[in-house]
């Protein structure tokens, strides 16, 4: 039996709407916190943008735009091609094996500095050996699902 004061805090949750209660509360918490962040840190951030200390643009300083964007592009291409190739050989893990070898090779070429013939051989061997061993151990020995 609640007193008059505690009755102010009575809450009734309809079961059909219960999935929305907590997300709504967290959503409002996010809005309030975002507002507080804008009020507390906003002026400082504006000053930093105006003075050029901070920028939203990609680039500047040590930013390696080519390697960054190429890494994202290669990752997307890797995932997409793995799914397509894997579709031809269901449950064999060949999508992973076939696509990991060239993609690892390309990633290594993308990341390497001062490419030499010796480095190229090591990169090639690594690109072939690591996915093959991973495929054999995980797919053949441990029966782990691979694309």
């Amino acid at each position, binding site marked *: 039996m609640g007193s008059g004061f*505690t009755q102010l*805090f*009575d*809450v009734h*949750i309809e*079961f*059909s709407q*219960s*999935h929305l*209660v*907590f*997300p709504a509360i*967290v*959503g409002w*918490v*996010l809005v309030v*916190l*975002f507002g*507080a*962040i804008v009020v*507390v*840190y906003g002026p400082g951030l504006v000053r930093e943008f105006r003075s050029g200390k901070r920028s939203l643009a990609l680039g500047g300083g*040590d*930013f*390696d735009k080519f*390697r*960054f964007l*190429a*890494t*994202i592009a290669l*990752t997307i291409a*890797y*995932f997409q091609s*793995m*799914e397509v190739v894997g579709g031809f050989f269901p449950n064999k893990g060949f999508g*992973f094996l076939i696509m*990991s070898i060239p993609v*690892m*090779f390309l*990633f*290594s070429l*993308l*990341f*390497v*500095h*001062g490419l030499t013939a010796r480095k190229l051989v*090591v*990169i090639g061997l*690594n*690109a072939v050996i*690591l996915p093959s061993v*991973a495929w054999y151990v*995980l797919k053949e*020995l*441990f*029966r*782990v*699902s*691979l*694309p």
Partner: protein
Amino acid sequence: MDILSLLTPIYFVLVFVGIVVGIIFGSIPGLTATMAIAVCLPLTYGLNLNMSLALLLGLYVGGISGGLVPAILLKIPGTPSSIATTFDGHPMHQKGEGELALRTGIVASLFGGVFSAAVLFFFAPALADMAIKFSYVEKFLIIFFALTVIASLSKRVLVGLFSGALGVWISLIGTYDTTVGGNGDTRLMFDFMEPYLADGFSLLPVLIGVFGLSTILQEAAQGVKGGGLAGMALSHRTRFSLRVFKGQMVNLIRSSSIGTFVGILPGIGGSAASVLAYTQQKNFSKEPAKMGTGVPEGIIASESSNNGLTGGALIPLLSLGIPGDSTTAVMIAAFTLQGVQVGPLFIGENPQTWDMIIVSLLVANLFMFVVMFFAIKYIIKVIMVPKHILYPGIIVMCVIGAYAINSGIMFDVWTLLLFGLFGYIAEKLGLEIAPFIMGFILGRSAELYFVKSLESFGNLTIFFTKSPIAMLLWVLIALSIGYSFYSVMKTNHQAKGANGG
């Protein structure tokens, strides 16, 4: 003895492999123990829980310990938890005492690791026994407390709280699960997303994305510089002797205790443990002025505290189901994978696994000691593997981990990419990853406990009046938030003083 029958040669091989791989990850700046576990998790898919934990605890201990190698030889902490090791470790190396510094750190690490395993052994069951009696109200408040503690120790308190709330919000995407008393309706998504997100984002792809792929993206953005850790030659003018530890027992125990305590607090990284222990040693040192110039006591403080963190971080995980740091957060995925739920009932219902965790932690620390103490020269050679060889392999392992967690769902691989990009952007925007991950892991439990409490009691005051524990938790929540604002004000005051004076 049942447990002896589980200590098979394969078990020891797994701990050993975990230690070696963990040390390698820990030794390479930018790679962490968390990443080592996230990337190697697919290797546990074919193992049972005890064997999985053998490998993962090896990775954890190795990953935390390996950070001292570049901290001493290059003045670059291999992991954030070895930051304070650079203060005295590198000056010692420059004086020709590199080997002495490394071996001092390794012995201190062993002490800290064994100390924390002992604390875990005695403290976790007691905490779990207490937590079994908790109702939904107290369970919700514990999660709330965990999130406020981790957020309050962020660089910017409001941003930390925002990051934690964002993690909770993203965890709620999907169906309100009927198996825990939900109504089975979906929320926070459009209809076309339902085939992919009905169960929400899977934990492991999110973790691998945030800790694995985003690190590669950050490195790519910086041009993947440094073909390896060249220049790590070991100086050994002064040989190691246990006499270094003469008069350091108090330092060892205090620093290990600090590390273990910091580990128990949810989400606080090893860097806090390391710096806190170092600062305390400086306060208590007979010759504080010498610290930072290359004296073993600084390394002893830092290394015993960061290894003390390992057992400490497992305490809230195994007794409350709340990870003590981001590395143990990834370990939750290993338990989930084996169909085991960590929480107050875990130790009582899985006594054999509990014993194995303690044994594995001890064995891992002993192996770490043997590998690092006697084979340090070879470890240094191994970690010189160039990044252009290492990183593509990590990407491949990330894919395996994400794809295989739910036995072959390609959407999980795309989730990996999505959260890899999120991790990169979050870092640029200054969002705090640790509170975000903690919020993501605990969000659904928080919802369950909150809604069920209100459904049962129908009044918000129940969160304050349910029990003395609930009231105590509110005091702790208020203290953690109060402390964070106090530290911000103190820092601002000091900054103004420095500018003014």
